[in-house]
């Protein structure tokens, strides 16, 4: 009969109308992301050996670091900056790090108001006073 498809559509809609909701209420309930999600990076300066592999691995020249030699002629990290405005969140830098000093973290609320705040000073962000909420592996 003509109209059978229309009635079936109506029955599907009314079933969903009285069914449960699937959405989360965001600011009250914050989701916990899986452990491999690439939402931002975090650095542990003690483990970094300033090898520069992450700088070369990045497709977009996001990372810039500088180091100095101390009395035992070993490299010590001085500054480490990431320009998040250019970052693709591809994760190649964290895969390239040999000592696992640069790691992924699941902090996803990174929006800022000014473009200058997009240049992250990773050493300052690693201090416990500056760490924002979220898990760090």
């Amino acid at each position: 009969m003509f109209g059978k498809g229309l009635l079936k559509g109506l029955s599907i809609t009314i079933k969903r109308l009285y069914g449960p909701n699937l959405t989360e209420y965001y600011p009250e309930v914050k989701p916990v992301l899986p452990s491999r999600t690439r939402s931002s990076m975090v650095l542990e300066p003690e483990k970094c050996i300033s090898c520069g592999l992450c700088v070369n691995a990045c497709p977009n020249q996001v990372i810039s670091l500088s180091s100095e030699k101390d009395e035992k002629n070993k490299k010590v990290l001085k500054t480490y900056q990431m320009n998040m405005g250019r970052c693709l969140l591809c994760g190649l830098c964290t895969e390239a790090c040999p000592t696992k000093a640069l790691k992924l973290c699941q902090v996803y609320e990174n929006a800022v108001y000014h473009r200058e705040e997009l240049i992250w000073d990773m050493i300052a962000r690693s201090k416990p006073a500056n760490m924002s909420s979220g898990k760090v592996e």
Partner: protein
Amino acid sequence: MTIEGTQEYAINMGPQHPSTHGVFRMVVHLDGEVVTGVEPKIGYLHRGLEKMAESRTYTQFIPYTDRLDYLAGPHNSLGYVQAVEKMMGIELPERAEYLRVIFAELGRIASHLVMIASGSLDICGWTPWSYCFRDRERILDLFEMTAGNRMTPNYFRIGGVSHDVPDEFMPALKSFLDDMPEMLEEYQGIFFGNEIVQSRMKSVGILPKELAENLLITGANLRASGVQYDVRKAEPYSIYDRFDFNVPVLYGCDTYDRHFIRLLEIQESSKILRQALKDIPDGPVMAKVPKVIKPPAGKVYHRVENPKGEMGWYIVSNGTTKPARVRIRTGAFVNVQMLSAIIAGWKIQDLVTIFASMDLVLGEVDK
């Protein structure tokens, strides 16, 4: 001086419009409600990916390939990494091949779901759109738990894949496949079985078989016009020759068939996924490749079956770590010419429906 009779006028459906899928501009010549001609104007999303490839190494270019057909996730990098492996002669471990097939087919299902959703949204069916996107969320969750990102997972590498799947992956994929028949029933009931949708889409926008072959249309648009051609069966790549699946072909050549064939392709992809899930072996996920990838000097051309059409990768290497030239033949770019070829004589509302059935993604058209 007055002009007698009616007058043709030209409307600009500009880059910002609620129903062009992305930033696509067309100048539409109208006679009342009847369209007499269309001039598509593309290039609003051109990012210069092929030029950027010449200053990045082979591994650094993989995140950029994800941004070509951004709805199909990992499927775009499949062609690229296989082309490079062809040049270098690398053999992959079995587990890596199976994982690649699983992720490529999941990307295909995700892309077809968006096509059906936006096809329904263009004729003001808001509910099928939300049902398709609800189901697409489960696929994106699978991508996120394995690879890291939802839409641009950056998962494939030259020589294999980057990580092995976590423990939650296989049960989640299994439950997704078990829920699939019920989801397809729902789409059939609310969208494809609806008489108004059928009256809107059947016999509209006929693409005859000879015209499709002459214009080099590929992908599901070609198969809805009666030509049985799928790169996975014509020139099997990866391990597709081990799976038992059909290539659906429909003979209606109209808009309804172009939408319906994607539903059938989702069914076939789920068949492949079930077989891959059963047969996947254990083992390493990355072959032994040198740390610095330097293919020998030469050229290679490799084709894969993208959800939007046939995608061809032409890579020229001059022996260094960065490619000399990467040329991408995308299915959507060639499919754009279908619009001006078949549009004459239809109305504005048919223009929107026909455009939705062509399944363009501007990331692929403009690169």
